[in-house]
């Protein structure tokens, strides 16, 4: 009985937090409307944002207001944080799908797909950008911006009080920049917003219109990849715009803690960082081999080959998903290279997806340590460490185990998804490419994702993106905890 009362109290607290995050999502829905002074002719679409926003605000307010007021100093565990993150993300995704449906552009499946693709910073799209209203295009970019930082980080930097530390960890953004979570999240938002503004300026300087610059900068730094053009960055055919995009994508895929070290001028530590090293190594391997074995069959001039190869390598590893042209014409070598890069993905604690450079680097390092250890005397004491953020991180064996478990789970899920694609009659290379893109929250497409794709494909991708963004375990923990608690309450009655 006592435990049931405690459970009740905890769930009231959880619902309260969900209420706050729901109200935040309702505020985000109003942001595209700020552009109405520039595009007054689109006022007829404003209802499709206002209605869901008001609806969400009411739900959030009820959750927040009518749960019993708890004692102030209650803190959340990681599992409870997981439940809040899971449910508030679902609410955010569903509510963000409403504008697409209310305007009448997409049906339910497609709208959820598009909104999930936005929030998880994937960038696979079923929206026809040539006919879509500007408000919708802005809304897609704004979803990616907030999805990149994470709902909790955005809220923690502004209104949420810091007792919800479990929340911060639950969203898969566990690196801290400063010795207090509130100032950490503030620092993240400053860095993120600063880069975004700089990105907009650079794009405008290199010849984009302000509207395109705004959307592309948001989508590049969040490693999202929604574009306002049908053929993405390839539309501009401009080297300077491509270079700006390279830089923004690489910035987006770098851990915020590493950015923090870089911005403080600690270049030595920056280049010691394992993720940065691996990123550089992978780029310097894959760019030349793509040039030699794949892209040189597509173009006749060396600059064109090099440009294409550099751009597609960075877009895949950073899990952004901008592209210069279609992948249909690539040979198997090129396609599979891009699949590998998409699965590896970007940095932890950045806006990127994939398995994450840190895990790959850690497993790789531990293999080297094992081989080296074999040749050392039996009673040697050795301290293994890698650089992370600004400090050395001592590696304990359970770190390696966690990373290895994650990789195995990731690959299993990947195979399962590919099987579902194959069951719909797609070729093996197309299936592998498209699901790697969804699971790694990349957004490159080989042509399967389209308005006329079968619903089962869209739902598989939707689920893949969600699992990939929240890093599996949090979702599992949260669901298991909910079931366990429900079971307990019923069995004791």
């Amino acid at each position, binding site marked *: 009985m006592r435990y049931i009362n405690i459970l009740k109290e905890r769930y009231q607290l959880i619902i309260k937090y969900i209420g706050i995050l729901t109200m935040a999502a309702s505020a985000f829905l109003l942001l595209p409307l700020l552009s109405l002074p520039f595009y007054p002719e689109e006022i007829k679409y404003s209802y499709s944002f206002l209605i869901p926003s008001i609806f969400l605000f009411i739900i959030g307010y009820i959750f927040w207001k009518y749960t019993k007021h708890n004692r102030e100093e209650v*803190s*959340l565990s990681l599992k409870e944080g997981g439940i809040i993150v899971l449910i508030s993300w679902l609410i955010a995704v569903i509510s963000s799908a409403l504008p697409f449906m209310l305007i009448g552009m997409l049906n339910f499946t497609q709208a959820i797909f598009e909104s999930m693709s936005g929030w998880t910073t994937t960038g696979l799209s079923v929206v026809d950008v040539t006919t879509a209203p500007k408000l919708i295009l802005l809304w897609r970019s704004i979803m990616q911006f907030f999805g990149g930082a994470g709902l909790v980080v955005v809220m923690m930097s502004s209104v949420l009080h810091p*007792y919800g*530390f479990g929340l911060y960890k639950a969203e898969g953004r566990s690196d801290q920049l400063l*010795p*207090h979570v509130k100032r950490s999240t503030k620092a993240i938002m400053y860095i993120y917003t600063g880069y975004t503004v700089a990105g907009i300026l650079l794009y405008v300087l290199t010849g984009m219109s302000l509207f395109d610059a705004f959307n592309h900068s948001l989508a590049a730094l969040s490693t999202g990849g929604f574009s306002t053009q049908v053929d993405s960055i390839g539309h501009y055919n401009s080297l300077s715009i491509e270079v700006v995009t390279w830089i923004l994508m690489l910035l987006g895929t770098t851990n915020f803690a590493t950015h923090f070290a870089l911005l403080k001028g600690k270049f030595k530590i920056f280049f010691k960082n394992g993720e940065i090293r691996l990123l550089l190594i992978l780029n310097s391997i894959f760019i030349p081999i793509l040039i030699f074995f794949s892209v040189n069959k597509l173009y006749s001039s060396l600059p064109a080959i090099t440009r294409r190869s550099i751009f597609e390598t960075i877009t895949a590893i950073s899990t952004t998903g901008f592209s210069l042209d279609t992948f249909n014409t690539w040979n198997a070598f090129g396609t599979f290279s891009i699949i590998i890069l998409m699965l590896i993905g970007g940095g932890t604690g950045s806006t990127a997806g994939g398995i994450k450079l840190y895990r790959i680097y850690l497993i790789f390092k531990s293999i080297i340590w094992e081989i080296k250890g074999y040749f050392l005397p039996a009673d040697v004491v050795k301290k293994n460490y890698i650089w992370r953020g600004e400090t050395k991180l*001592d590696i304990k064996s359970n770190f390696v185990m966690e990373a290895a478990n994650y990789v195995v789970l990731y690959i299993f899920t990947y195979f399962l998804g590919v099987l579902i694609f194959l069951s719909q009659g797609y070729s093996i290379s197309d299936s592998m490419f498209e699901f790697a893109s969804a699971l790694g929250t990349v957004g490159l497409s080989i042509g399967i994702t389209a308005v006329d794709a079968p619903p089962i494909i869209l739902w598989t991708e939707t689920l893949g993106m969600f699992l990939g963004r929240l890093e599996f375990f949090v979702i599992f923990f949260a669901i298991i905890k909910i079931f366990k608690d429900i079971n307990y309450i019923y069995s004791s009655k």
Partner: protein
Amino acid sequence: MMYVVVIGCGKTGSAIADLLSKNGEDVVVVDKLNSSFNLLSPEYTGFTVNGDATELEILLEAKIDKADLMIITTEIDSVNAMVSQIAKKLYDVPKVIVKINEPLKSVIYRNTGIITLSPTDLFIDKLRDKLSKEEGKALDEERTI
């Protein structure tokens, strides 16, 4: 906002670190044993540094040179004495507070500008207050009778 370094994450140190972190200060806590950090509550959001506080490298990792306040709470008085003097003399930390386990040792800190607190003395002070209050009460009661 203050930058606080807490040395020692025992019962005292962890409670102090929790309190300061909840109040919104930047806190770093240093302890030799990694398992000591389990004493910290979930709402502690500061950093932890695992290492021996008598090594300068560890103190620098905790950014002692940037500290506004340093609270030293280990169980060994000689460690406390050494670390507090490093903080005060070498790094000019504005405020250094030391927990004194053995009250006789407070002599060490005379004229150093280091603030000392002894749990034993505090206990005795409180006890004296309580006793004197109760005596006072008893006296009052006698008078009213």
